[in-house]
């Protein structure tokens, strides 16, 4: 008997309606969906940049200074502006979606969606302040 968990890998000959290449430009909701999904490019790239920062710190004072100087270049500033907008958009859309995926019950009552989202926004603020405090303390 085959493993049921492997069943979805079978290529079914389903009919798929051909979509125009620019289907996601057709309306605002599709575009916002793709914009939200593409924030992952900046998440990935900035994560790699963070890894490079750690490596530079590991190599010594001169490589660290060189890395920080590299971040001052206009291409890096432009990248950081886009990356900041992308991770903000990711954070806002993510926290707003959490109530859809997480149902919390307290004393038999379902906690309202708005409260779950608000708790995540509050946690975001606290986490950001803690990280900023630790890094800036020097």
């Amino acid at each position, binding site marked *: 008997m085959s493993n049921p968990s492997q069943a979805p890998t079978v290529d079914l000959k389903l009919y798929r309606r051909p979509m125009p290449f620019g289907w996601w430009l057709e309306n605002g909701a599709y575009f916002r969906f793709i914009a939200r999904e593409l924030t992952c490019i900046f998440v990935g790239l900035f994560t790699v940049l963070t890894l490079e920062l*750690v490596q530079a710190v590991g190599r010594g004072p001169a490589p*660290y200074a060189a890395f920080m100087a590299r971040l001052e270049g206009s291409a890096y500033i432009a990248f950081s502006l886009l990356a900041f907008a992308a991770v903000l958009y*990711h954070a806002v859309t993510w926290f707003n979606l959490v109530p859809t995926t997480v149902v919390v019950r307290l004393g038999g009552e379902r906690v309202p969606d708005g409260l779950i989202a608000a708790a995540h926004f509050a946690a*975001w603020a606290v986490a950001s302040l803690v990280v900023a405090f630790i890094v800036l303390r020097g």
Partner: protein
Amino acid sequence: MTPFLWFLFGGGGMVSALLLPVHVLLFGLAFPLGWFEAPSYESLHGLVTHPVTRLYLFVLIFLPLFHAAHRFLYTVCDLLQVHGSRRTPIAVVCYGAALLGTAVAAYTLLTIA
């Protein structure tokens, strides 16, 4: 395997949302543009080599990498209309890149002195 990858996507999405904006703001904008003075080498080195920070940085790199890989895979396949087993090579490249980054991060954070 698929539930595990969705778990990494979810965990990575949460870590990215909670922590990446402040990291981008500080290291991408505030320090390069001189809004704040960048931490000295000594203080940042002391911070990065602390065991708790090593663990923090591993989580900050590992989970968002898998989040990005997973989301990129699904988005590229939606945009280019790649279906079924034709997605496999793209999946191998995406998750492979995340795995490679995770391995480099683990090695770096374990060996940094």
